[in-house]
């Protein structure tokens, strides 16, 4: 063997071995287009970005690439508004939306993907909040702001727990950024108490108004404290779910009088100190043109806006004047009102004409329009006598062409969605007053809302006060809540917590008002267990420790 051969053998051995040293580095992943959670949560701006991420869940288009508008962008609206005597799905139009249709008529099963996406989105929100709660306190930044950010995160964790509890009952607790994937369900009591603890924390540390317009503050937290207390107190009082013998979702632990008392205190504080007022006129709460001024009443909104990130709500899927979404700003007509909701109004109650209309004509050139705050609103047709064209028109979309020009698709809208508003607090205050023995004070609060409804006309106020008067105060309260908060996501919960959902559904007029109305299906498919949604089957298949809600 020649010496040169030896040289080359050595060289090749070196070559073969080369790189082994550099391998470790080569195989270590260094992401370019995103941060890992360990790289993030380091600076004050990281803290701001992280809390914005917690808000994002409110109208997330999807969560981690899954689902389609699982929250207030669309699905949360279905889960909170359908299946009671305010709105109904149009069977024909929803034939292609079987998951949504089944939410409208109580035929859903645990396979329903919309349920899964919303359930997962709520937990994704909790997870995001948990990261803020755990990681932000060690960031070196302005301590006041740091405390507020953590408190905002606690608020949202409380909010997301609340909705999980309201929709499903007791669910697994997730109080850390690392959650046991097979943890069993906690009880309704634990979920409600966790939510209240989070709201209390937020209430005690948040300022009266957020540094960022449109975000939550101490009164938002207080409003939800009132909500939760009324919810558990009335559930206890009305034996909600008791016939189902399902201890996990039991309200036996609740001290109803003390919860009403709590609610009263919270509402009173908001009423006296918060500075929130009733916005006039009523419909300015529900228009994109007036959304800045509406914040004088909205205590918590899902904020919308133009731009390429779909910061909007898919109003064309929701209630609204049916027809011509792409020329005059109607909707697909998937969701229509039922006559019970309409009939609760007196004809001189201004809220009726602002809440209901006929369908939306197609032609952008011949349809009349009005201009509000520089926005062009086409005017839907009048309601015909047999109500067959009736639509809800509380939320109205302006000219689709203008929307497109500001970056909102013609099937969506940039109207902020009010989750909690001062008007609701007045009604909660009334309920708490009544439950703590002050019926007169309670009725006085109705007047504040009805005064706005009749634009301050005292004669009309008297007329409707008489017309609406019911000896059963709670009945009148529920009616008033439906009139004031029609379609805003509370009626179904109100009927559940007062134990009235079953009887209200049974009493619904099941003759068809419009050709594809199908009340009968709702009536025949409702059962006592349907006050809770079923846990999504995928949750049960991924966590065998979960117990399904009764009857699913």
């Amino acid at each position: 063997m020649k010496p040169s051969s030896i040289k080359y053998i050595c060289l090749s051995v070196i070559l073969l071995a080369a790189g082994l040293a550099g391998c470790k580095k080569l195989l270590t992943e260094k992401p370019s287009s995103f941060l890992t959670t360990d790289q993030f949560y380091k600076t004050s701006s990281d803290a701001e970005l992280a809390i914005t991420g917690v808000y994002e869940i409110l109208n997330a288009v999807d969560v981690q690439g899954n689902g389609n508008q699982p929250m207030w962008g669309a699905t949360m609206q279905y889960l909170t508004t359908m299946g009671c005597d305010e709105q109904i799905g149009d069977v024909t139009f929803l034939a292609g939306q079987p998951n949504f249709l089944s939410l409208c008529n109580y035929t859903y099963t645990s396979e329903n993907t919309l349920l899964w996406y919303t359930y997962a989105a709520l937990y994704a929100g909790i997870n995001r909040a948990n990261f803020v709660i755990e990681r932000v306190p060690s960031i070196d930044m302005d301590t006041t702001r740091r405390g507020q950010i953590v408190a905002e995160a606690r608020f949202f964790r409380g909010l997301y727990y609340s909705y999980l509890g309201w929709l499903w009952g007791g669910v697994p607790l997730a109080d850390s950024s690392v959650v046991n994937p097979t943890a069993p369900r906690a009880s309704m009591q634990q979920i409600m108490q966790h939510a209240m603890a989070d709201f209390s924390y937020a209430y005690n540390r948040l300022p009266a108004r957020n540094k960022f317009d449109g975000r939550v503050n101490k009164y938002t937290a207080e409003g939800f404290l009132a909500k939760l207390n009324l919810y558990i107190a009335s559930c206890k009082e009305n034996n909600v779910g008791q016939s189902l013998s399902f201890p996990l979702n039991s309200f036996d632990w609740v001290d109803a009088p003390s919860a009403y008392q709590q609610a009263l205190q919270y509402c009173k504080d908001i009423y006296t100190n918060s500075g929130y007022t009733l916005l006039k006129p009523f419909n300015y709460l529900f228009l994109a043109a007036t959304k800045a001024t509406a914040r004088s009443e909205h205590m918590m909104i899902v904020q919308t806006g133009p731009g390429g990130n779909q910061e909007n709500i898919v109003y064309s899927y929701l209630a609204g004047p049916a027809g011509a979404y792409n020329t005059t700003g109607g909707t697909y007509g998937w969701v229509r009102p039922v006559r019970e909701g309409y009939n609760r109004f007196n004809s001189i109650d201004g809220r009726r004409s602002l809440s209901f209309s006929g369908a939306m004509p197609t032609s952008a050139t011949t349809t009349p329009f009005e201009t509000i705050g520089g926005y062009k609103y086409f005017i839907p047709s009048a309601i015909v006598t047999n109500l067959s064209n009736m639509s809800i028109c509380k939320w109205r979309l302006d000219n689709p062409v203008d929307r497109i020009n500001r970056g909102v698709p013609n099937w969506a809208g940039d109207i902020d969605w009010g989750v909690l508003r001062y008007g609701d607090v007045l009604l909660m205050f009334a309920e708490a007053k009544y439950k703590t023995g002050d019926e007169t004070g309670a009725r006085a609060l109705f007047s504040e809302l009805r005064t706005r409804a009749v634009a301050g006309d005292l004669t009309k106020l008297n007329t409707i006060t008489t017309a609406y008067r019911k000896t059963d105060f709670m009945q009148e309260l529920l009616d008033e809540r439906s009139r004031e908060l029609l379609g805003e996501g509370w009626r179904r919960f109100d009927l559940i917590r007062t134990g009235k959902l079953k009887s209200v559904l049974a009493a619904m007029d099941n003759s068809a008002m419009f050709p594809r109305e199908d009340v009968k299906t709702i009536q025949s498919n409702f059962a006592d267990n349907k006050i809770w949604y079923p846990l999504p089957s995928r949750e049960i298949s991924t966590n065998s420790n979960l117990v399904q809600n009764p009857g699913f």
Partner: protein
Amino acid sequence: MPRLSFFSFILLFYLWSPTARAQSPVTPEVIVRGTVKDSKGPVRGVSVQAKGSPITTSTDTGGNYTIKVPSMRSTLVFSAIGYGAVEQPVTSSRVVNVLLSERATSLNDIVVVGYGTQKKGDLTGSVSSIKGADLQQSKAISFMEGMQGRAAGVQVTSTSGEPGAAVSINIRGANSFNSGTQPLYVIDGVQMDVNNGEVASSGFGSTSLSNPLASINPADIASIEVLKDASATAIFGSRGANGVVIVTTKSGSANISSLEVNSFVGIGRANKKFHMLGGQDYADYRYFTNPLDASFAVDTNGDGKPDKVRDMTGLPSHDWQKEGMRDALSQNYNVNYSGGNARTTFATSAGYMNQQGLIKNNSYERYNLSLKINHTATNRLKIGTSINASQAIGHGPASNGGNSVPNYNGLVQYFLLSKPVLVPDAGDLSQDPDGASFGSPIDFLNFSYKQSPFFRLIADLTADYRIINGLNLNVRGGGILTTSKNKEFYPSNTSWGFAGNGVAILNTSNTSNWYQTSTLTFTRRIKDHAFTLLGGFELNGYTGETFSMQGQGFDIQSINAVDNIATAKILSQIPTTNKYNYNRVSQFGRVNYSWKDRYLLTATLRRDGSSKFGQDHKYAWFPSAALAWRLSNESFMLRQNVFSDIKLRGSFGVTGNDRIPPYQSLATTANTFYSGSSGSATLGISPNSFANPGLKWETTYQYDGGVDVTLLKDRVNFTADLYLKQTKDLLIQADVSGQTGYLKQWQNLGQVDNKGLELALNTINLRLRNFTWSSNFNISFNRNKVRSLGSVGYIPVNITGSTISAVGRVIKGQPIGTAYGYVFDGIYQLSDFDLVGGSYVLKKGVTSILGRTAKPGDFKYKDLNGDGVVDNTHDYKIISNSNPLHYGGFTNNFQYKNFELNVLLQWSYGNDILNIGRYRYEAGGGYFANLTEDYWNNAWTPGNPTNKYAAVMGQGKTDISSYYVEDGSYLRLKNVTLSYTLNPSFLKRAGIAGCRFYVTGENLYTWTKYSGFDPEIASYSPLLPGIDNISYPRARTYTLGLNVKF
């Protein structure tokens, strides 16, 4: 000089022959001449080598050669692909003439295996070979389609008839849940994964994938080897689990300058058409569904209410398939020029191809340029380089539907579903009586713009150094660069652009992939023991970058807005970039050992590291071993002459799969925007996935037993293989419980088994003086079964682009590729109901449907749990299986004098297709959608109480049910080629070395019961390949070609 073993000869042959031109260290003393012929005449390009030395030359066009050999005792070795090697000692006349026999001793064929070559007879693993000539019978765009029906165990399916559409190749069944079910491609030693993401795509209005390997020119390919069992693939370790396809391109030959011109033109026509309703029938349908629609009804009695269907006489009635589709022309030109001298050879090729789609304005163009140079620098050092550049351009608007409301339907769907009458004038959508979302598909086709060029450059450099005889160092390095840009513009006069006042989309995708491989090969033969040792080290890095944005609201549309996207009023998708990278590090070794050429052993061991896995799981070992017994070489077999070869093979091996997106073991964050106080979106950052530090390799354990039999002097060749593949720790993006805050996570779970039998039979049925008939038959049986899913109950299969989206499930105990839904049980008949107060009420005992008030004419389903009510939690079951019972191909080749006829039949039997496109043209896809005549004429009515079709207004059309499951079996006359080769003697005077004319017909006839456009379907979801959502029709093509060599 030590005697080189046969193995090293093979290695040298692969690397350098017929191009190696080493200078002999000893002054040659003997000049030998001769002519090499085969049964037809002189053969050129045959490698002639002095055995045991690097001295090599090759024959010229006349088959003549001259070689200087060291001594009179030398032996010459003559070899060429497609011929058996022949050894002849030098005779005193110094003239050695040789007659080569074509494939006569196919066992001496050289087969390319991982990091080397082997004689076919010495293989211990399961390898199928396809010759370039067979491949080129196919006039398809990509070589992958040309492989269809040619090799056992290789299932080739092109996703649709769209030019340049993705092709799915499954070797021995699907053994992965993720997208990485495609084999590894090794093109001239350069390893490539198929990453459909390399071709930029917006996904807007199109769920179809493009085939990045369509940029490789099939005309450049000399041969393809498919490595199937683990013994063959394990040397590729991490990347071999789905099998390996080795592509070898043509090389130049020394002392022969060859110019070859290849061109063909073809014409294609859709092999099927749907018969949709014409104008008046459509009006009847619309009047039936809505008698009040003033567009389709007239008021005859003057009461202001329409009462009679409108007479459409005189109004144009459109047949969109006819108006929007065409006879598609294709043209292909190819020039190969190769040559060289004793030290250097080269081969270059340039090609241009343009294939029109069946849909107007849709076409696929490709430009190719390649250069391959081999050079013998010294008698020890050989270097080579190859460069391959290609540009492939897809033209034309999206042809299949997207996944959201305005772009649900693409052109193929529109051709079927668009209404035939009352169509708005060109460019004036607002006249449409059904709302401006629906216009004429011809407008859409004419006004939309889409172009997606894809450029790929492969540059490879290799050096081989003979350290001592028998010991070679090979170093290879290079890179693959791709760049792709997708531009789309849907102006406001198209249905997709109307709502946004024009939509413009821009995407780019760039990737760079570099690699470096070093191998040491040692070959030695000591008496009866022959062995080759291989050791190697490999590095591989891949970086990809994408960009996308979308603008809307264009006031200026007289120029293509995507070329001036700044004029967009809004960005409906903000500019988004993504960069990703992954690396692999590998060490490997292989031993080939044979004793007396009777007992063969191959053992490999590879250690792979992939950056994609958790910190402590990046590396894995992939061993394999194979044994073969050449029974025919035993002494007791020497006396018989029926069997020329009998070989028994057995192998076991482990291979891996890491084809998941990078960074999946890390805890990632994502951008999550929320509207700010000013109304514009502000950035938020949110946790997006949770860490899985235990993420590790998906591992396949494969057992293979095979037998190769050659008998009757090679007239019959038979190969059979039985195999079992068990894939464990499957990589899957599994559902995790929502309480974690996450929806999915990449995990290792479960086990999938594939077992099967492959048979291949090559026979020369007749060999007469002027006539030869040979055939090749191959058939594959594969059974796929999910053995375990870990803790997961099932894996849902969802698709986009349809109202029916939850279409299937992967369930333990079932194969991958199953649809999951109701069992169709006919139609609700009037007799199932009582008439109560004017409405139909189901009789007692008749199954009802949860959440639906059943009506006569609705779909009825089987109540599987017998509770009287059909619901989607208890009454769903597996309703289809995409996997065929068997598939294969049957080729017959007839040669008569200068004529050659090649006929390929190809089939798939026993597979189901979920034809969900059907609901759209059976009155389930919206009131405006047109219907097939078949449906409209046979739909359920009280007077036609059929159990076959639902009523026009019947419910259940968008349920997932076995109604939509059809038998997808087919037998296809895939390719018929008739060619004529002109006599060389006749041509010689014109200076032409060879000339061949041919006519090819493709997809000439398909025997199938399937009702859709075409039964060959491969959806983009590997978990349910057999699903058809009205896919692009496939063309029947006639091609005329000419091949001239100078």
